[in-house]
């Protein structure tokens, strides 16, 4: 196997793709700097609304969370293009090894948790994982993390809810309706409630975890500021104003809340998606129906 030296054009496209991967985040930061009113970063506020589109039924506000999530989408797109740039059947680049490793890991994860029938879910699962993880990690750049907005997490959970219902309907509409009357017909309201609770719980779990992290970080920063003022405030000049206690201490919490918790919540969201979808699929009923259909086609 021989490694061919990449020519200048290949390298130029590489650099362009890497630049385009970073560009959306830079653009989001620029938007934040240009349009948002300056604050001291100590208030607990929702997403800043850039502008509202007037629509006949309801106004559509375009908020910071939405814009940041678009930035993440574009960034993921160019990251994928970068990883698959110059891909060959024979491995020639390091990034191809990385990309293949990631795809293999993800395929194994989906196979373990969902079974062979759901192998088509791997791209969807990877998309949600990357979106969620990068959204949470974008708070490291000082951006408003899209996942700490209820609407973004609710959108993903709604998508998962539609998928669950779709796979439940694979066993036939009658079987689906029958599922609500089990084990007793009296349980109908509880079953409907349980169905609705799934997306609500998924939304609140994801959103609550990320939000609680940012709220605690802000509270800690405020407390440290107050502590600095109390202890060192009496000192004259430079020493009285310099925030000694705010150096380093918030970073320790940030490692847990931004890095660890963000990635963990993305993983958990994906795991729950896979488990809910695969357990909602009535396999026996589905294959029975398929067999019946095949027989009918043979007869006719």
């Amino acid at each position, binding site marked *: 196997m021989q490694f061919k030296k990449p020519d200048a054009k290949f390298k130029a496209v590489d650099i362009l793709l890497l630049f385009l991967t970073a560009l959306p985040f830079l653009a989001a930061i620029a938007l934040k700097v240009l349009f948002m009113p300056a604050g001291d970063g100590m208030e607990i506020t929702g997403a800043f609304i850039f502008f509202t589109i007037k629509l006949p039924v309801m106004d559509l506000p375009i908020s910071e969370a939405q814009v940041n999530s678009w930035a993440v989408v574009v960034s993921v797109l160019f990251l994928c293009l970068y990883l698959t740039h110059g891909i060959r059947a024979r491995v020639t680049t390091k990034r191809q090894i990385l990309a293949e490793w990631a795809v293999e890991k993800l395929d194994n994860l989906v196979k373990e948790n969902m079974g062979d029938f759901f192998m088509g879910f791997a791209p969807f699962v990877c998309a949600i994982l990357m979106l969620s993880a990068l959204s949470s990690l974008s708070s490291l750049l000082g951006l408003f993390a899209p996942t700490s907005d209820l609407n973004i997490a609710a959108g993903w959970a709604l998508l998962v809810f539609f998928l669950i219902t779709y796979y439940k309907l694979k066993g036939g509409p009658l079987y689906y309706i029958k599922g609500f009357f089990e084990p007793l017909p009296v349980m109908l309201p509880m079953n409907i409630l349980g169905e609705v609770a799934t997306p609500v719980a998924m939304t609140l*779990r994801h959103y*609550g975890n990320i*939000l609680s992290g940012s709220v605690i970080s802000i509270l800690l920063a405020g407390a440290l500021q107050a502590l600095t003022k109390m202890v060192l405030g009496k000192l004259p000049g430079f020493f009285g104003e310099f925030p000694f206690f705010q150096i380093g201490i918030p970073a320790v919490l940030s490692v847990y809340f931004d890095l660890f918790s963000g990635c*963990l919540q993305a993983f*958990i969201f994906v*795991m729950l998606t896979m488990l809910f979808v695969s357990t909602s699929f009535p396999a026996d009923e589905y294959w029975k129906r398929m067999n019946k259909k095949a027989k009918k086609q043979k007869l006719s």
Partner: protein
Amino acid sequence: MELAIGIMLCGCALGAGIAIGIGALGPGLGEGSAVAKACEAIGRQPESKSDVTSTLILGCALAETTGLYALIIALLLILLAPGRFVDLLVNAVK
């Protein structure tokens, strides 16, 4: 009027504190017992560590949900409820 608003704010703050305090108790106990059992399982069968760990993390996330409900209610009580309630009170007095 000031007294009424004061009582209202006090109620909101107390309610938030009580909500997150009691709400955090359940998930704390539940996750603690889950981790204890997982440690026992790993001690008994060290080769199953990766399986137990991934299941544990998932279970902890599920157990945490009720705590997060409490957190969101507490946040609503602190951030949103006072303004709404004061508005309601002022309108009612008018």
